[in-house]
């Protein structure tokens, strides 16, 4: 089965690569620009914005042509690129979500590190211009940037202001702490709303960011940034307390679980739940799919944890460059990355998608343009990221086989919410099963 499905993917890859080549209009200029394939996982409005970035870059010069190719979900784009690499049919650039970072980093022969690419091409590149909370994920222990930060997001609190008003709550002051969330949920429920709040991306919100936000480690060795010999430490009092609250709230729908990834969205869009904690990049989708007035707040925290809130960590994706393409393509990739780093390009991307401005200059420019004043609440994500200087517990995470580990965490969370397991037992099981994944990764990537 694996083989036949992989073969199917390969065929699809070859066909789509071929179709992409055919789709190019005959070059009007005397010289044909070098084509550079960029595989990505951005559908809908986000995909349109991404294609505009590529078109704008292509219009600035005639030597290179970036060709964006949509490859499905994040896991599909990544595994598709890997399968293509094995078949030597891969693109120069592939967008990989943060969960795949450890896999990409350990594939040394397959990856052309970004810092090296920029140096080889003589393209100006200053890693310090990027926000440390973003680059921490993607740099090696020597501080070298391995992939190009492109679209990073962080979970924020979304509020249905109309329902808040109906319940007699102040729509301009979203709840700040978890007890305040509970109190607000009880009030909206008393006003006839079935559910208080829901969450996207269960593990990202209820384990990974929960921990960073309270300055508690998810694993040893600086959450895996320090090496592959890391162990998970998620069966800790903070996470247990949080899961106990969620399980208790699930019974009366103060919290209502809506599934993995962004499957919970309909609950918030339809007004079934008054609040949602989800990616900052979900803003465009919510605005497009709902009729109520939308408010923004920071992630809630547990007030009895000393020093909380700390700072949030990111999700989203970066651009990885794969080896084995003709040399002139890499010159074009470096030029393209240089283009993407420009403050005005970054600021445009940030303002139109909800992703973080990943350079300080883009943030400053957005502020100078008055974007945050015109769109109150849109700076919540960046304020969350830069609330305090990142600690070893809040720089980021990098675990091998993290895709499977997230599955494990979400399976155990679901068992907890369904009342089949106590939070304590579920977290212990998630930690043990996650550690097995880490050891397997260590063995496969010595």
């Amino acid at each position, binding site marked *: 089965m*694996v083989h036949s499905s992989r073969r199917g993917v390969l065929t699809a890859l070859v066909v789509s690569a071929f179709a992409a080549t055919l789709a190019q209009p005959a070059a009007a200029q005397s010289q044909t620009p070098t084509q550079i394939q960029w595989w990505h996982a951005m559908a809908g409005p986000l995909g349109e914005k991404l294609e505009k970035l590529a078109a704008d870059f292509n219009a600035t010069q005639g030597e290179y042509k970036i060709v964006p190719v949509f490859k499905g979900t994040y896991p599909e784009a990544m595994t598709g690129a890997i399968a293509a*690499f094995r078949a030597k049919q891969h693109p120069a650039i592939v967008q990989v979500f943060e969960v795949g970072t450890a896999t990409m980093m350990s594939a040394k022969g397959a990856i052309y590190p970004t810092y090296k690419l920029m140096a080889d091409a003589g393209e100006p590149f200053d890693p310090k211009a990027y926000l440390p909370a973003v680059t921490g994920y993607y740099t090696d222990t020597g501080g070298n940037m391995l992939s190009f930060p492109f679209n990073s997001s962080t979970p924020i609190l979304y509020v249905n202001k109309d329902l808040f008003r109906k319940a007699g709550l102040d729509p301009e002051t979203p709840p700040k702490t978890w007890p305040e969330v509970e109190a607000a949920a009880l009030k909206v429920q008393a006003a006839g709303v079935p559910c208080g709040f829901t969450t996207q991306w269960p593990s990202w919100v209820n384990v990974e960011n929960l921990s960073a936000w309270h300055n508690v480690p998810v694993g040893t060795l600086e959450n895996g940034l320090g090496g592959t010999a890391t162990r998970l430490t998620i069966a800790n009092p903070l996470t247990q307390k949080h899961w106990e609250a969620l399980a208790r709230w699930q019974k009366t729908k103060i919290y209502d679980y809506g599934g993995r990834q962004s499957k919970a969205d309909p609950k918030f869009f339809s007004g079934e739940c008054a609040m949602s904690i989800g990616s900052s990049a979900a803003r465009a989708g919510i605005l497009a799919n709902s009729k109520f007035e939308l408010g923004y707040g920071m992630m809630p925290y547990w007030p009895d944890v000393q020093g909380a809130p700390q700072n949030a960590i990111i999700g989203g994706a970066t651009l990885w460059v794969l080896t084995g393409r003709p040399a002139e393509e890499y010159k074009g990739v470096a030029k393209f990355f240089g283009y993407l780093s420009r403050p005005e390009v970054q600021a445009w991307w940030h303002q139109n998608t909800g992703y973080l401005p990943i350079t300080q200059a883009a943030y400053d420019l957005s502020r100078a343009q008055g974007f945050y004043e015109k769109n109150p609440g849109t700076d919540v994500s960046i304020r969350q990221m830069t609330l305090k200087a990142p600690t070893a517990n809040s720089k980021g995470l990098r675990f091998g086989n993290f895709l499977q580990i997230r599955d494990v965490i979400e*399976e155990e969370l679901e068992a907890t919410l369904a009342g089949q397991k106590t939070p304590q037992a579920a977290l212990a099981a998630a930690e043990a099963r996650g550690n097995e994944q880490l050891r397997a990764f260590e063995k*496969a990537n010595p």
Partner: protein
Amino acid sequence: MQAKRVTFPGKITPYLLLLPQVAVTLVFFVWPAGEALVSSLFAQDAFGLGSTFVGLANFAALLRDPAYLEAVGVSFLFAFCVTVLAMGLGLLFAAAADALGKAAGLYQVLLVWPYAVAPAVAGVLWLFMFDPSVGMIARALRTMGLSWNHMLDGGQALTLVILAAAWKQVSYNFLFFYAGLRAIPQGALEAAALDGAGPFQRFRHIVLPLLAPTTFFLLVVNLTYAFFDTFGIIHATTGGGPGRATTILVYKVFRDGFEGLDLGGSSAQSVVLLVIVVALTALQFRHIEHKVSY
């Protein structure tokens, strides 16, 4: 008297005629199966940059993995329910259509439709009906006092994928049962009726035995369908969750191999899956086919 054997004069023609089938089998079955067998003995990184021979370690790891053993249980429960439901309903509809006689045409067309629907589309269709927030059926159930949330309740999720998978297969079963029923000689039934056998007795003692070859064939087809072909439905509706409630073996192969990039472990799983189905089929042909009267 010896039966005369029909032989073709040419030496090459029969082999040429056989060639396409052999080629298809080699390319689409023997080669992938062989590759699965080989890669199940190796630990490999995702990019294929290096691989280590680990012998049977991938298989040993499977047996130690409670999640895998759970998937075995879920698979058999799932396959059993899908087969019983799809075949039961198929037979019921076929008997009803048969009783209608000539007026059965429209009924027949309507019943065959689900088979033309792609598995992923079928999954999404059922997902829309049962979506806890916006699904029609979920809402109706709620007004009847039953809270439906298959994102959280494993039993409900399994019920949902069984219904969706069975719904898609009913058409196929219906067609074969219907054809089988039409082929039953009317004379035998009339004779039984003259002897005083009621409708149920005629069905039990004449129709069912005469349908046995069809039933046996469908049993194998349905089990294989439930084991191998329901991936799309599960991927579109529940993604194997909540927890691991709807992770059947073939879905686990996909998750571990395609998403998790654990090619060795996933190949070991597909080898086991292959063995299970070969064994199942062999067992049935040996022991059940003997009892089937033609």
